[in-house]
């Protein structure tokens, strides 16, 4: 099962190594990981998605909590949270394909952020499923390059993981 955890960590060199090391020493592959600023410059927020059973996840969460630079760790359940990912995709765009690409982009509320004679860069956000669907649609034209942020996630409602 895929789990999403959101550690709030101190914004210091080496924190990422310590955190990621906890996963690799058990041979877990991190499916996606993001680290970004929070509203407090001393803190960063990570979102980690990892495949594994409950027991394993519980153990990793406890180990994360033991790290001195980790402030808080929360698991975010899909049913109780919103998850979003950003993808930027460079798609081959011959003249005759352009209008079709634009149509797809508009249907799924994506955006074209760069156009060159033979390619376009499309930006989209949404759940992982939505991003996957979009990628599938664009694949017919030729995907030249793709950069995905990995998922960020947040519990619905007023409760907060941290500042």
């Amino acid at each position, binding site marked *: 099962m895929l789990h999403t955890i959101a550690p709030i960590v101190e914004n210091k060199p080496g924190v990422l190594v310590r955190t990621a*090391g906890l996963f*690799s*020493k*058990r*041979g877990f592959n991190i499916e996606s990981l993001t680290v970004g600023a929070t509203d407090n410059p001393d803190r960063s927020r990570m979102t980690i998605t990892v495949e594994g059973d409950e027991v394993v996840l519980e*153990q990793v969460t406890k180990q994360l909590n033991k790290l001195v630079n980790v402030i808080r760790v929360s698991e975010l359940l899909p049913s109780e949270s919103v998850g979003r990912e950003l993808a930027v995709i460079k798609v081959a765009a011959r003249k005759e394909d352009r209008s079709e690409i634009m149509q797809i982009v508009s249907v799924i509320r994506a955006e074209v952020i760069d156009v060159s004679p033979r390619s376009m860069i499309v930006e989209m956000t949404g759940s992982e499923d939505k991003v996957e669907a979009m990628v599938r649609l664009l694949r017919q034209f030729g995907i030249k390059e793709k950069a995905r942020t990995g998922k960020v996630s947040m519990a619905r409602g007023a409760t907060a993981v941290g500042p």
Partner: protein
Amino acid sequence: MSNMSGAEAIVESLKLEGVDVVFGLPGGYILPLYDALYDSGIRHVLIRHEQAAAHAADGYARATGRVGVCLATSGPGATNLVTGIATAYMDSVPMVAMTGQVPSQLLGTDGFQEADITGITIPVTKHNYLVRRAKDIPRVFREAFYIARTGRPGPVLIDLPKDVTVDDLDFEYPEICLPGYSPNLKVHALQIKRAAKALMEAERPVIYVGGGVKYSDGHKELVELAEKIKAPVTTTLMGVGCFPEDSPLSLGMLGMHGTRYANLAIQEADLILAVGARFDDRVTGKIASFAPQAKVIHVDVDPAEIGKNVRVDIPVVGDAKTALAELAKAVEPKVWSAWNELVAAWKRDHPLFYAKGGDSIKPQFVLETICKLCPEAVIVTEVGQNQMWAAQFFTHKDPKHFISSGGLGTMGYGFPAATGAKMGCPEKEVFDIAGDGSIQMNIQELATAVINDVAVKVIILNNGVLGMVRQLQDLFYEKRFTNTTLGRVPDFVKMAEAYGALGLRATRPSEVEGVLKEAIASDRPTVVDVVISPDEKVSPMVPAGASLSEILELEG
């Protein structure tokens, strides 16, 4: 394809890689592999402490040019290897280390004898693997050996959970497919042309050579190039032996304890051709004032070394041997110049020296005597004063005949490394030049040497102190000799005898030659206790952080 266990697949892989000897010590989680080794035909040398397994594999690799192999069990076995792996990493020694690991389902549970050895060794290995499935074994081993010996060599660790060595697989040795690893060996023709032009235009060139020339087997090409353009050659500690020190072009070693004339030449040079060397702080002294007038050509197989410590004018990425051969082809012969005359005068005026005469044995004299009696010997060293005297007072001529822990400076390295070197080259005379401090860090390996009939000759320059540190206290800490006195314990002759080795002692200069002859004649492990004064110093010396021009001559 044939069906076999993971452990059998490891043995098969080792055979395909041409491994004939491995150094290790068994334990619970590596037992399946030991069981497969039992009747495999691969020689296993049982050491007494895992650190020595890594050092022995390292010494074997440096003496033979082949990949050294060591193994240990999980947990403490694996962590005991770490110093040896780090030593090999710092000196770019090809090595494959195998470690047992708890079964996969116990990973990360702090199981008995569990250590995250792949996590621990990331910064000190060229690459490492935690094998998760038996079927990955052939691929991992193929890659590990390839990575260890190609490009800039280095140690690769393979962590083997017990179940992985027990499970079955269909063995097939795959082709190498490493999209993220492609060592750049070819040299760029245009860069060679530029470098050759600079060499031709230079009036005061110096060739500065490191371990890279040793590993690429480029010493013949180096001699050819240097002689063709009459360029003086200085080596780092790792490069010792790459250029014959009896050549008029040899400047010996440079840097902190280098010759005065090598350091003078570097400071006056208008061009430095650095080959397989990395401008380490022990070599450059204060970096801002290193070779102030020189243009720098830097040849290295590792692009990350180029421009790391000093500004480089002409970078040449690629294999040292190839680059030296190409350069030798590209340059025109030069004649003996005013620069050569100046360097020769420095060599005459500022030779390495020590005060002769007196009642106590001079360590420098011991090295000179070994050199006289056994000029073709393989000299392995410990770390400290013994190491520097061995580099300075033995005339080195063969790149594989000087073996020393340079980068990490690991005390306790020499004896197990000498054992490994002797096993790799049984026909050669192998000395471990030791101090009484260093030798005690892996003294237990006397048992390994005795039981395996490895006739290494250990020369202990016994000053009863941690000499190099004491020298620093003498010079920079007002002779406050805190914790550097070892008290001349144990009696090394008795200790050698207790292990079943031959123990000899020299206490007066007149005894040195006779005792050394006796040691050389001995066909079993031999320990020679040479009693020297605690006040002996390594000279000359550039204090740490000072410019190479600020070299001090010290008296013992």
